[in-house]
């Protein structure tokens, strides 16, 4: 799933080296009015979204706002922005407003098939922790990666849904570290077994080979006393995500979220 990004990233790097000025000029996929992203991330995501646009032939972009201006809600803002803008019929756009701390995934046309209600929920749940922690770079990177995965899946198979849920890719830094740690443990224990084969001289501390006629002449097990300790149970976290609704299919599925 995420693998296909490696050639993608390579391509971008090549492009970047070939036409640095052209790339800087084409930052049209990101309108970061609230200035939430660092410029390098802005560049990277812009390139990634452009590439996706070519691949899937849909509009993808990210808009950040300081406030909503005249629009009453972020949904209204998005609706007007998308329909009045020069965008394709199909697309997925992310709107973030710092003033109201709203985040909204707007889907247009076929975009809502790839990112359906399930997809919106999934993406919200993944990025909101970053946004509310003001880790905007990570949040937007995460959004773009997930969007790419959802689009890829929709294009090549069927869209992710409740009955066909998104699987986190197993290749991630934590799992690689676990693999490396396990490899270190296993290889160390193997070589130490090999090393122990070289040693065969050990003192005897027992003489059980020479013992016989063992008899137990007295045995008593008497209860003396008890000690009881208790530890408080960790409280279960009650702030679960909202459960996904049905298939939207319209121009925009679920509503916005706060972060």
């Amino acid at each position, binding site marked *: *799933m*995420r*693998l296909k990004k490696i050639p993608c990233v390579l391509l971008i790097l090549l492009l970047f080296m070939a036409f640095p000025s052209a790339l800087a000029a084409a930052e049209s996929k990101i309108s970061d009015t609230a200035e939430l992203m660092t410029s390098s991330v802005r560049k990277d995501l812009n390139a990634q979204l452009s590439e996706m646009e070519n691949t899937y032939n849909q509009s993808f972009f990210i808009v950040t706002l300081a406030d909503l201006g005249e629009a009453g809600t972020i949904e209204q803002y998005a609706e007007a922005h998308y329909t009045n803008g020069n965008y394709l019929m199909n697309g997925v756009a992310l709107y973030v407003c710092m003033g109201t701390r709203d985040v909204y995934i707007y889907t247009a046309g076929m975009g809502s098939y790839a990112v359906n209600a399930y997809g919106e929920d999934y993406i919200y749940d993944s990025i909101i922790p970053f946004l509310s922690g003001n880790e905007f770079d990570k949040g937007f990177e995460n959004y773009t990666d997930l969007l790419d995965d959802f689009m890829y899946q929709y294009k090549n198979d069927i869209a992710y849904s409740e009955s066909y849920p998104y*699987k986190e*890719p*197993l*290749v991630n830094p934590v*799992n*690689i570290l676990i*693999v*490396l740690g*396990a*490899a*270190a443990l*296993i*290889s*160390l224990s*193997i*070589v130490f077994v*090999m*090393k122990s*084969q*070289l*040693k*065969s*001289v*050990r*003192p*005897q*501390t*027992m*003489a*059980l*080979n*020479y*013992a*016989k*006629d*063992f*008899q*137990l*002449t*007295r*045995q*008593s*097990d*008497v*209860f*003396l*006393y*008890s*000690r*009881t*300790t*208790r*530890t*408080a*149970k960790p409280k279960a976290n009650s702030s679960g995500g909202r459960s996904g609704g049905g298939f939207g299919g319209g121009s925009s599925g679920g509503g916005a979220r706060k972060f």
Partner: protein
Amino acid sequence: MDNVWEYKCPACGGKIEFDSSSGQLKCPFCDSEFEIETIQQFNEDINAEKADDFHWEEYENKGWQEEEQNNIRNYICPSCGGEILCTNTTAATHCPYCGNPAIIPKQFSGLYKPDFVIPFQLDKEAAKTALTNHYKGKLLLPKLFKQENHINSVTGMYVPFWLYDCSAGAHMRFKGTKLHYWSDRNYNYTRTDYYSIIREGNASFTRVPADGSKSMDNTLMDSVEPFDYNGLKEFQAAYMSGFLADKYDEDAEVCKPRINERVKNSIEKLLRDTASGYTSCTAEHSSVSLSGGNVNYALLPIWMLNTKYKDKLYTFVMNGQTGKFIGNLPIDWGRFTIWLLSLFFGISLLGTLGLFLYDLLI
């Protein structure tokens, strides 16, 4: 005042006074409460505890007969001080301990005559073959060690052993714990129940061996145990023909602490193994008494092989009766590192590949 007793608290060791009029039995230091029978029994038990008592009979010297003694020669190695015996008909050419070829005759002085001997069952060729087998499958053994391996000497030698018979009785007290877990809505609970576990028992030990040679490394001899005592024969000087014999220079008395230790550990293990069903079981007291301790002197067959590698002497030992072969080998740290790194990278690669394949295919 007659009605007040003093007890030791099983939980903290503090002094508990029991007033029969109040009927209360609560430790003032740790607040533990006890049944009166429990604490009486516990205090009776700890008051009856004794120290270890190892009692052995004196070893009785059996002297050599005149003509036997004339047949035996005594040599000493000026290099390492090792002393060996052999019959007139056996050529003693070198010291089996350090390989020094210049050993010198020494006046044969009145030594104990062995009670028993286990004759050699395996010959020199068997010892050499066993050495080759000993190298097999040792992946970290330096290649050069195998290739350059000129065995300096292969010597069949009777090593003097003291064989100890005794019966051992032991009394042990353990503190045992059992853990119980449960929980309610807010808490997880752990209850530890403490038990006083008493075990008494006895066992007899037959012919526990300890080598009586200073020159011979004790752990080497420990490692070639056990011998099959069905092969034990009444000693005759004729068995020594063709082999060297080490002269004992540690008498039965000197070796006793090693035997006491082994017998004590063994009877304690036998008793401890009967205390089952506990989460933990810690010995709080142990007293072992040995009785009927009897010692015999025996010569047991050992093949010794010496080799030098990088100026270090490596000694291998084979049980001349059972063929058990032991001896520490040097390690090739280069190979160790190569194995470690290749295993690490191999396993890491496989693991990571597995993750990638999972992502690709599933």
